[in-house]
């Protein structure tokens, strides 16, 4: 699984495929080769809303790279354009300027190579857990039904949901819904997983459990992932690379490689290394909050206060 990342010229293979020169077996072979993980390069993306004097920059000159099989965490103040960025990368919205490429090919219409796990749940309420998880492979119609089901049940078992296979989303707790949705995306082997604050709205305890669940799932497949969050501890705990975003218009302020060993375990949260990373990140975020505050941003006051509090906590812990 881990070595499937080497993808040569997917643009070429796509082109040949569309011409219909390949038989089914070859198509499947190419698809398998493309599965698992890709490399995404985002180059000076820009996005504005409104026009004339009401024009507002959401993203400006936003550049970064999602390395193959790495977990990249994006953190930034609320309202800095994180969700817009995800929407552009998934193909739900178009950028005004700049490019985003996946394995060399520009991103276009939404497809199963770039799957999003949304804030709060987007499980289809009218399908059972199993129905939701198998939906992607079922409508892609390129694998036999029993094989899909076997894989889905395997994944559900891994996240402790096998007993809930026939329950509807409304019967699941918040944490269960998040896990089901992660699995629904994962089963498609997207080349990039885009997670838009996936654990938002969960209580602190569930959130911690989810992070541990997620670490295990990620380790298993190592799919290239962009994980958006506004929680500093979650960010450092999960990141291979930590991207810090500026307060609108959104741009990457700094990319910090987090050099801690995998698998990540909760005890790392108290290591010196971890606290150093946290201080560095908090300083950068603090700067952004000050700027926002100076620009008379009403949310910024709360934001500052919150980060001020976390910071003092972390500094006193490191002493």
């Amino acid at each position, binding site marked *: 699984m881990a070595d499937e990342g080497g993808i040569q010229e997917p643009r070429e293979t796509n082109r040949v495929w569309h011409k219909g020169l390949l038989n089914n077996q070859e198509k499947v072979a190419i698809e398998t080769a493309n599965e698992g993980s890709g490399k995404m390069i985002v180059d000076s993306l820009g996005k504005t809303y409104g026009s004339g004097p009401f024009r507002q920059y959401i993203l400006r000159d936003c550049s970064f790279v999602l390395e193959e099989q790495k977990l990249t965490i994006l953190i930034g103040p609320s309202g800095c354009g994180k969700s817009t960025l995800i929407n552009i990368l998934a193909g739900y919205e178009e950028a005004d300027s700049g490019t985003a490429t996946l394995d060399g090919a520009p991103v276009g219409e*939404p497809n199963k190579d770039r799957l999003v796990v*949304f804030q709060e749940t987007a499980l*289809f309420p*009218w399908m059972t857990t199993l129905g939701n998880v198998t939906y992607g492979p079922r*409508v892609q119609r390129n694998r036999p039904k029993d094989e899909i089901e076997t894989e889905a049940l395997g994944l559900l078992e891994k996240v402790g949901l096998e007993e809930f296979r026939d329950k509807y989303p409304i*019967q699941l707790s918040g944490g269960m819904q998040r896990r089901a949705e992660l699995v629904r995306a994962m089963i498609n082997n997207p080349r990039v997983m885009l997670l838009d604050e996936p654990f938002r709205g969960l209580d602190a305890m569930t959130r911690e459990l989810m992070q541990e669940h997620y670490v295990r799932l990620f380790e298993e497949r190592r799919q290239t992932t962009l994980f958006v969050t506004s929680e500093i501890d979650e960010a450092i705990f999960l990141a291979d690379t930590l991207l810090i975003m500026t307060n609108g218009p959104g741009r990457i302020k700094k990319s910090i490689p987090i050099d801690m060993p995998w698998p990540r375990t909760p005890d790392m949260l108290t290591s010196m290394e971890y606290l150093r990373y946290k201080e560095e990140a908090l300083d950068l975020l603090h700067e952004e909050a000050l700027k926002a505050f100076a620009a008379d941003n009403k949310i910024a006051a709360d934001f500052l206060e919150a980060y001020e509090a976390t910071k003092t906590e972390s500094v006193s812990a490191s002493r």
Partner: protein
Amino acid sequence: MKSPNSSSLKKLFNKIFSKAVLRGIVAIVFSIAFWETASRFAFPLFAFVPPPSIVLSVVGESFGSLVFWENWTSSFGRVIFGFVIAQIIGIPLGLLMANNRNIHGMTFPIFEILRPIPPLAWVPASIIFWPTTELSIAFVIFLGAFFTIVINVLGGAKSIDARYIRAARSLGSNRSDMFFRIILPAVLPSIFTGMAVGMGITWEVVVAAEMIAGKSGLGYYTWESYVGGNFPRIIVGMISIGLAGYISSSMIRLIGKRSTPWLRLF
């Protein structure tokens, strides 16, 4: 062996004789008792109202006559005919209006002008327009259910959470998957709401239309009883209409519950 049986029996007993049911029974008994006394002692406004005891004897007589049941079936027939056609045309139209801006732009203004016209205001035009009375009644019934279903389907389809559509697109749905596996189930609850409301309107309309133009049906029966001066039969007619409406609505609720199992899990 003994305990599950006796406990489930006990549950059933508790359910049947629950406080809610008892309250309902008490309310009905008291109303009937009041009605009986009011008629017997000729309270103001009640002087010409036949007491329930006399109505009951007419009920027995009506239930034995074939004509009475023919009135039931002809009203039901009209309601089902008009209602079903309204669904067949209304549901696809509502979905089209929600999904296609051109169709929405062309139909919505006309729709909004015609919608506030009460179905009964259509009766004269309808009688002139359609060749037979039967068709004109069916048309008016159709209108009663049609506008309601279209508005509900349109509203339901427009308020589908964008994330479902986005997720479905990303996961690889083609157009037919999108329609049959995402949009249709998402709109289903609104369809059944529209049907339940529409069914209520349909009964109001059929009765009035039968009084104006019908030669049969429960509305006709009630009106004819009034013309013939048979007061107890008026009340039998009224209660029949109430029961018929209740039966129809219950059927729709039942089908609705069966078709949207994910909604009744609280």
